[in-house]
């Protein structure tokens, strides 16, 4: 059983396009969708309406940079400063390649930073590559959730 992918995206159009891209890449991972940074943190911390979700981190978080309430950089900062979430792979998805965003994302310890390509074919390819790398191939560091049997 593969771990799910957590997709954090507020814009309905981007959401639809990303889901289509993920389904085209034929990943078997389940995709969990949350719509803003606050919800993403609730889900990761298993609190609020996510209090009863099964334990375990997702395989990867696909995180939009601009989000309502708590933005992507703040989510990333909290992930990196929370024990148990630190090793979680986080991929930042964004509309623009503003240098300040890129620099801050790397400073905060992002695993990858992807400017959403305008061309949809490229977008599908980028999403597929990301998914395969982070959700299937990536070897998480020792001690992370991977070594807990996921379907107990």
């Amino acid at each position, binding site marked *: 059983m593969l771990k799910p992918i957590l997709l954090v995206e*507020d814009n309905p159009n*981007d959401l639809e*396009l990303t889901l289509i891209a993920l389904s085209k890449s034929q990943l078997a991972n389940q995709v969990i969708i949350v719509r803003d940074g606050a919800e993403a943190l609730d889900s990761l911390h298993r609190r609020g309406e996510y209090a009863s979700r099964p334990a375990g981190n997702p395989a990867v978080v696909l995180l939009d940079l601009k989000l309502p309430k708590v933005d992507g950089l703040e989510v990333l900062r909290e992930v990196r400063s929370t024990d148990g979430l630190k090793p979680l792979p986080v991929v930042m998805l*964004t509309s*623009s390649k503003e240098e300040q965003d890129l620099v801050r994302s790397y400073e905060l310890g992002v695993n990858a930073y992807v400017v959403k*390509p*305008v*061309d*949809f074919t490229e977008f599908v390819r980028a999403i597929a590559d990301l998914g395969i790398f982070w959700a299937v191939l990536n070897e998480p560091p020792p001690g992370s959730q991977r070594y807990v049997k996921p379907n107990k």
Partner: protein
Amino acid sequence: MTQAATVPVLDLSTCDKEPIRTPGSIQPHGFLLTLAPDLAVLQASGNVGDWTGVAARDAVGQPLAAVIGAAAAQRIAPELAADLGPRPYYAGTITTANGHHFDVLAHAWDGVIIAEFEAVDRAEAADFRHLYPLIGDFLLKVNDATGIEALASLACQHIRSVTGFGRVLVYQFDADGHGHVTAEARDERYHSYMGQHFPASDIPAQARELYKLSRIRLIQDATYVPAPLVPALNPVTGRPNDLSFAALRSVSPVHLQYMRNMNTLASMSVSLMVKGKLWGLISCHNEEPIPIAFEKRTACEQLGQILALCIESREDAADLQFRLEVRRTMVSMLAGLTQGSDFVENLINVFPDLLRFARASGAAIMVDGRVLTYGDTPEEDDVRALVDWLTLHDHGDVFHTDKLSAQYPPAERLTRNASGLLAMPISRIHKHYLLWFRPEWVHTIEWAGNPHAKAAAPGAVSGAPPTQLSPRTSFDAWRETIHGTSQPWHQGEIEMALEFRTALLGIALERAEQMAELAEELGRANKELEAFSYSVSHDLRAPLRHIVGFADLLLESAGSEDAQQRQRFLKNIKEAARLAGKLVDDLLSFSQMGRASLRPTTVDMNDLVASCLDKLALETRGRNIEWNIGTLPEAWADPTFLHLALFNLLANAVKFTGQRDPAVIRVSAEDHPHETVFHVADNGAGFNMEYVHKLFGVFQRLHRMEDFQGTGIGLANVRRIVERHNGRVWADSVQGEGATFSFALPKQDASH
């Protein structure tokens, strides 16, 4: 005469009387119908028979289906029945009963629905992916350090490659309305107009007005025969139809003749609006007729808007930088002024700064009959005479000219070092003056044709009777050398000069510190500007990506049976395109907020609220809203700005109570000794107080797009407006129960 410039419209001042908005006819590369709300045909263009087989006089009074066929009518009826805006909206592509294909554009204006049917040679819908290669690439370069001219040149290339026009140029209007070609892309067979000037009279005032409202115009074939509307008068208004925004609007016959003379059979122009003014035009020419379908025009129009935004932000940045420099000089000067006790002696100490401050080559001070000069200035006697003349002719706070001899003939002798003058009295009672001089700046202007000789060209158009208006025919480069003028004074310099005087009058030490603070504040304004262009690159790219993505998916699914999915893709494309346009508009208005000057007066808030409610009537129709509006005190503010702020708050209250029945919206006020506080409270969705600090930022949203529409600029506007009035704005909410937005405005005597 095969390769000549064209200018967008006519060149004679009598053309100001041409009825360009109400020409009564259209260009015949499509047909036009005006429709009643039930889609019955009110008027038809005379050529409707050529396209549909139904003659115009037979079409009038019939339902739409009788003209374009039942299937086509059924297809677009829902689009036409929706709330149409005042600008053409792409309603879809139809095939008429007799097998012709048309793009349908619709807008509601002048009391009727104006439906335009542009002939196209494809049966499928317009492909908005043309937006991509053009704008996508352009946006990538937006934040690079390229200057305005490089961006303009890039825009020309893109527009040329999308449309196929033989020559595309950008020209910029100067303060007097003369055009200057600053960028160009052309086929090598076309003659270049780079660097040339076109006189202001080439574009009549009323055409400029129309260009501000309607951002793109196409003449696809200058040899066309106009198709008149039947009947000629709009039955709703009883007057000729206002076709200002119709894509097929016919243009003046003189202009067509002029284009034919110039061997330019197709032209298109896109307005570049910067800070609410017509900054310039993108102008396209082709020797052969050339059809440009709606989606390509949309791409060009959006590119024009983005170019204008870039120009605005570049100009603002340059302007801010300039003012910052001037102010730094001023601060150091003011510090110097406090060194000794004698004011005049102190001024002498800062003479070098005084020159640098105004980029002048000479300065003079006249105090108590003493004249002190520094740098290259006229002789002392000439300065005295000049001050006498200035004192006699009251010029208000500051006098400035870049051609002194035009107003003060004795200055003809002084052009070498005093062509330009910036002067101001530093005392209203005594004859104390501060003067800056600029030397003559001899320069040449290359005009496309002699602008002074234009009136003398009757009969230049072959076969034209002498009484007929005739456009100028010569566009050969004509060089004019300008004497007796200096470099113009920058608006920032003039404003700073005024401030400098205030500083002198208020003298000096404590003021100097304040000035240093102001310099810091300007630095902050620069930060805000950076945030603004950041948002432009960020938020404008999203809808473009959506358009391209869904258009790709649409093509991919062309053969599939899932019509519902394809419909949704199409809807997403259209909405993304609409959002992109709205974003551009909102950004423009937001940037204007920071700039336009305030004209505060006593405002009756009760009237203001009432007029906002009128404007909201459309949104509140069918809703159950309890308005709870107390008696409101007067406020001291600029009414236009305050109206906008209040409207934003009330519109938000209406929007966020969408799920409530009844919605309760309360407007109240408190009168304090130094300020007046207003509250707009609602029982709507509210927001989480944890994020209140983000609420008033540009493009900050606390809700999902599909729950509450909007571009995220409204509250940023409110804050900007209130803060420009030296007021405060804040918000309170209990999530799920409602929100209260409040603002406080200082009273008149407290606001300074």
